Every structure is written in structure tokens, then in C-alpha cells.
């Protein structure tokens, strides 16, 4: 285990904090999600650490409730994206030939259009329900996971030790499990981190545009949108959910950088 640098510790701490919010958010919240406690944008007091939002609800509580939506949806989409992209990418790397060509062309085609545009087009047709959001983002994102898995798989497949295993007569399942995965673990975990960041920011962005997670569910992106007007009066209200989003992204990025230390970051999208 390499020595963990202080920046990575900070990242891990941030992730732990958010995981706690994800799992226990509603339990930890001092007030209910919809409880009106005062006037719009009331300032912070000892009872309300971050003040009240545009409807007079406790900011901190809504942040904790929103964590489940924001982080949960993104986590679900990332996991789905990986479970689709990873096996297909390895398969394309191992089998080569027409399997590789067909899959790669398909992925290239989907990637012709920028992700946001594709997402907007789909959302326009199917609406912004939670399942649609998760599946759409997951499928669009899986293209990038596919590409990375394919390159990693190919890089390992040409190594002599992989060839020795093939010459032995090993099947595809063994090759993936024992030869490719252990040697691709670090870049893959780092990629998961990056995909999560991207998905997380993407979902929040969509919510900010009003096209993401819809009421009655609240999420951080939507909270930024709702509280946005406050900034014009010099109030910090919208900065709290925005900062929460930024904090988690920084934390994951710090850990990803630590995992990739010494290697060049694979050319995957940073967001």
C-alpha cells in the first residue's frame, strides 16, 4: 500500500461524509424536508446553520434530504453505466474481429452527438422521470466506459503473459478474471470515480436547467435553481447546494488523482 498523501486523505474524508449523508441523511436532518420555519432567505442562526431557503425551509435539512436524490441517482447511473460498458469493452478487446468492429461503430455513432444534446433530445421525448434519467445517462455514459475498458483490455491482451495464457487454452472468462482485471483495477477504479463525478455534475446540471429530477423530489441542482434569485441580493443561499456539489466533486477528484499518480490520466472526460 503506497503511502497515502494528505490530499487523498482529504478526498477520502469528503467521500465518507457524503456517504453518511446518502445513507443517513433524513435521519440526521434536524427538520423535515418541507417544514416552513420562517421567511424566505432568513439568515443563519444557531438553529438553522445555513439559514432558510427561498420558501423558508431549513437549508441544512433540505441538503441532507437532497443528498439521497443527488448522490443516489448518480451512483445508480454510474453503476449501471459500468455494468454495461465494462463487459462489452473487455469482450471487444478479447474477441476482436467483427464483434469489436460492430460494437466500436455503435459507440462511435452514439458519441457523434455531445452528451447534453443527446440527453436533452431523449428527455424531450420521454420526459424526466427518475428511471428515464438514470437509464439515459447510464447508456450515454457507458460509451466512455466501453472505450476505456477496450483500450485497457487490448493493452493487456498483447502482453506476453496474456498470450501465454491463451496458448495454454484458457477461455475468455479466465482471461478477463485473472489476467486483465487485476492489472486494470487501478485505472478502472479511478475511471469509476471520474464517471461518477461526471454523472453527478450532469444530473445536477440538468436539475439546474429544470429538466432533471422533478418535484416533489429535491436534489442539490434543483435547490441551486430555486435559490438562484438570492444571489442578486447578495445572499449566500444558492451557494450552499452549489458548494455541496463542488465539495463532493473535489473529494472524488482528489482520490482519483491519488490512484492515478504516476500514470498519465487516460484521455477520458474529466466531467
Amino acid at each position, binding site marked *: 500500500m503506497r503511502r497515502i498523501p494528505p490530499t487523498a486523505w482529504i478526498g477520502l474524508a469528503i467521500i465518507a461524509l457524503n456517504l453518511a449523508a446518502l445513507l443517513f441523511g433524513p435521519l440526521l436532518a434536524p427538520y423535515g424536508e418541507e417544514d416552513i420555519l420562517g421567511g424566505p432567505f432568513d439568515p443563519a442562526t444557531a438553529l438553522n446553520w445555513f439559514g432558510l431557503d427561498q420558501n423558508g425551509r431549513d437549508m441544512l435539512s433540505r441538503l441532507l434530504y437532497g443528498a439521497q436524490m443527488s448522490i443516489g441517482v448518480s451512483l445508480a447511473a454510474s453503476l449501471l453505466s459500468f455494468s454495461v460498458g465494462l463487459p462489452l469493452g473487455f469482450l471487444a478487446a478479447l474477441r476482436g474481429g467483427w464483434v469489436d468492429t460492430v460494437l466500436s461503430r455503435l459507440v462511435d455513432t452514439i458519441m457523434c452527438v455531445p452528451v447534453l444534446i443527446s440527453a436533452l433530445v431523449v428527455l424531450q421525448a420521454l420526459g424526466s422521470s427518475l428511471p428515464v434519467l438514470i437509464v439515459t445517462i447510464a447508456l450515454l455514459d457507458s460509451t466512455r466506459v466501453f472505450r476505456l475498458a477496450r483500450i485497457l483490455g487490448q493493452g493487456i491482451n498483447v502482453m506476453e503473459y496474456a498470450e*501465454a495464457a491463451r*496458448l*495454454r487454452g484458457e477461455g475468455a472468462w479466465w482471461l478477463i478474471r485473472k489476467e486483465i482485471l487485476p*492489472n486494470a483495477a487501478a485505472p478502472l477504479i479511478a475511471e469509476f470515480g471520474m464517471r461518477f463525478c461526471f454523472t453527478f455534475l450532469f444530473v445536477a446540471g440538468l436539475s439546474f436547467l429544470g429538466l432533471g429530477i422533478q418535484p416533489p423530489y429535491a436534489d442539490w441542482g434543483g435547490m441551486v435553481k430555486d435559490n438562484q434569485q438570492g444571489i442578486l441580493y447578495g445572499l449566500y443561499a444558492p451557494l450552499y447546494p452549489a458548494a455541496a456539489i463542488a465539495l463532493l466533486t473535489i473529494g472524488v477528484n482528489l482520490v482519483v488523482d491519488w490512484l492515478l499518480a504516476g500514470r498519465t490520466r487516460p484521455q477520458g472526460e474529466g466531467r
Partner: protein
Amino acid sequence: MSDILTIRGLRIEAPNGAVLVHGIDLDLKKGEVLGLIGESGAGKSTIGLAAMGWGRGGCRIAGGTVAIGGQEVTAESPAGRARLRGARIAYVAQSAAAAFNPALTIGRQVLEGPRHHRAMGKAEARAWMLELFRALDLPDPDHFGDRYPHQVSGGQLQRAMVAMAMSCRPDILVLDEPTTALDVTTQIEVLALLRRLIQRYGTAALYITHDLAVVAQIADRIQVLRHGKPVELGPTEQVLEAPREDYTRRLVGERQASLAGEPRRHEGGAELLAVDGISAAYHKVPVLSDVSLSLRRGETLAVVGESGSGKSTLARVITGLLQPTAGSVRLDGQALPASYTARGRDLLRRIQLVYQLPDVALNPRQTVGEAIGRPLGFYFGLKGREQKQEVGRLLGLIGLDPDFAGRLPGALSGGQKQRVCIARALAAKPDLMICDEVTSALDPLVAEEILRLLRRLQDELGVAYLFITHDLGVVRRLADRTAVMQRGRVVEQGPTEEIFTPPFHDYTGRLVASVPELRRDWLDQVLATRATA
């Protein structure tokens, strides 16, 4: 004073603090050639670069002094050192292809040095460059400089690099394994040209190499190095004929054995492998033409040739990694399916392949025990304690302690890793082991041990070897029978003794003549014979 380079107490440290060179003294006289000999890790390149005031990869000169013609390099500022580099002391790298900038013409890069150092006027520099091109026998010297590095051959680029180094008329040349990457036949040309150049212009040189026979042709004195420490220093003849130190003696002995090894004589059994009229191509480019070979049980057949001869391709065809365009391969009389995917498990078991680079032949995430154990489990169903015992036995067979089973490849040396690869192959109890340049990437002494191990294993187990190599010394020490390949064809094959006793087949003769011998005057002799031929 006549010393052009004086090094005293040189200490070099790596970025992580490890000591690479432990205080060395060195003297180089004007016009003299000093050979720096040693295995990998001896610090020869590091010293050569330090003589220029340069530390590669973050290494730094931690102590001692380097002086060129009285001027102390180590005391200079970075700008001062830069003024000396290229102008008074120049470097010739091992790989010319990597050392040239693909974006600029060769001429531009050769003239860059003189222009920057303002060593001579533009016209004078250009004339000097053309003279160098002519002296180095480069084709079309007047226009050679207009070409780009990727447009010329490897041997020509290597010579262009020498021209680039000489472009400022330096006092000292640091030659870092300049001929190691070249074929044996090309090596002679470049070696002769280098010597002529050095003698003509009176340049002093540090010749860095691990090959004693090569350095014997060009060096006046030899400095033997080991693990960053000096071992022995003396005139070339003395070091070669009467080495004082034990380590030097082992180096000389290994080289001698490789050049005049006792041939093997094995009576093989029935015919095991028959290669019949194999032709193969990569992307429509023919690589093998009508190759036929025969290998008997328990014997060693060496396939020898230079790069491009197709010997490795032959191995890939036999193992089924590459499909031939014509011909067949038979094992024990039975035709083998062209692709390995069509061969059954037992058939795959009987032919094992050992690779050249042990670093990439072992999965860095699998322990030694897992690597050797897998074939045992996969082919013979051995599991658990049985498997562990057998792994231990195999480790003993290759000369490693049983506790190596728990180690990862990263903790092993090059020689140890190659032994593990051999054990992995033996675990399958193969009839035939194909060794593809298995000693080429190892230091000479380590390589010798591996060869001895392979000989012993063959005596004990009766495995047949198909030994692919470019090194004639290895062939003489190991092979019962030999096949010589050139450009995809088998030029000659038969018992090793016969092949390497005159009268020679044309190409074989050239190959044999190109291998440097451990005599100072060998190169002169060869050049003389060529001149009269």
C-alpha cells in the same frame, strides 16, 4: 597535460537517494579510447553522462569532480556545463531512431550544435558535415542531410548520429552502446568506421558496452565496473589475456566459452517435430518461404539468423499463433491444426513457449506459485497440497528456494524471472519447448547460468528444445543441430559441428566472420581479408 578527462571520486545518487556510483576515478588521455565494461546496473552510462555534467532521470552528482582539459565541469553553472556539451564532449546514444527529432531534417539537427556553440562559420560547418557524411560512408552525402530521420535506415541513422556528435569537433566522444542494437553484420561496418574516424581526427572516446569482444577491437584500455564500483583497470591485452580480478575472469571466461564452446552431441530419438514447406506472411508481406525443419525427441535444434530472418515468426507458426499460407507442421507424425484455437488441451500442453522478455511474460499480479501452479491444475488437475508440493519440486529443479512461491515477479531479478518462466513451461511436462531468444535480454553471466540450467534440464528430463537466437555463441554451446535462416528461408541445416566448421555456406560464413573475437587484432584481420577478397 595530456589528460583530456579527469574524474576523481565521482559519486552519483538517484532521486530516491540510492547510490548509483560509489566514488570512481578515471583518466582519459588525448586521442585514447577507454572502454567501460560491465553488466546492467554497473553504472557505465551514468558515468558517461556524468562526464558531460548530465544526470538522466533526475540523478545528481553527489560528490567528486569531473574536469575536461583542466576545466572543472562539476564546478560550473548549468549554463557553463551547457557550453561544454556538444562542443568539447559529445554523446552518441544507443538508439538513433529515438535520438533524432522526427520533425526536423537530419542536416538541420547535425548543424544545430555548431550553430548554437558558434564553433565555426556556416559554410565551414556545412563543409565539415559533408566531409563527415563521406567519411561515414553515407549514401548521396551531398543530399543526405535533406532527409528526415524516418526516411533512412537504422544503420544509416546510427552513423548520422556519429556525424552529429562530431559536428563541433569535440575533444571527447561518449559512445553509449553504439552498436548493440545493430545486426552482427552491420556492427562490423559501424565499428570500423568509428575506429577510422577516431584515429583520423584524434578524438578521445569513452566506449560503453557490455560486450568484451567488441570493446577489444577499439579500446586502448579497459575499465571494468560492477554495481557502481570499479573492479579492474588496465591495457586491453592485459585485461583480456591476464585478468587480475575474479569478476573480470568470469566475464572473459564467459565470452571465451561463448566463442569456442564445446559442442553438444546428442543422439536424438524418433522424429518429434516436422516442419514441411511452411510459408507465412504478415499483412501480405511474405516473412517465411518454404521452410522445412526436422527435430528429434530430446535434442536441441537451434534456429539462428539476424533480425528479419523470420525465426520468431517460425515459432509463432509452430505454436499456432500465426496461420501459414502454405505447408504443414506435424507433431509425432500427426498434422497440427494451423490455429491454436483449434488444438485440444493436450496438444497445447505438449508444445510450450518461453519468451525473450521475462518482465512481460509473467503476470505482475500473480505470485510465482500461482504462475507455475496454473498449468499443473489446468492440465493435470492438481490442486491444493499436491499442487504446492509439485510447485516446490519444480522450483528446486530450476534452482530457486520453495519460499519463492509466495513472491510477486516484481521482487525477482531478470534471471530469476526467466527461471520461473522455464519452470512454468516445464510444469506442463511438454515434449517440445520453444525458447525464443530467452537469453538475449539477460546479462552475459546470468545468461550463461540459464544456458547451463537448460542443458541440465534436457539431460534430466529429455525435453526437446527449439532454440531461437541470433547469438552464435549460444548455438555452439547448446545445440545438437542447427538451422541457419536468412530473409525467411532456411539457408543451411545439419549437425552444429558440421555447420560451423569450414568450408562454410556463403551466408553462414559471413555470420561466423562477423562475430567479434576476443583478440585485439580481430577487426584488422577481417578488414584486411575483405580488402584482398
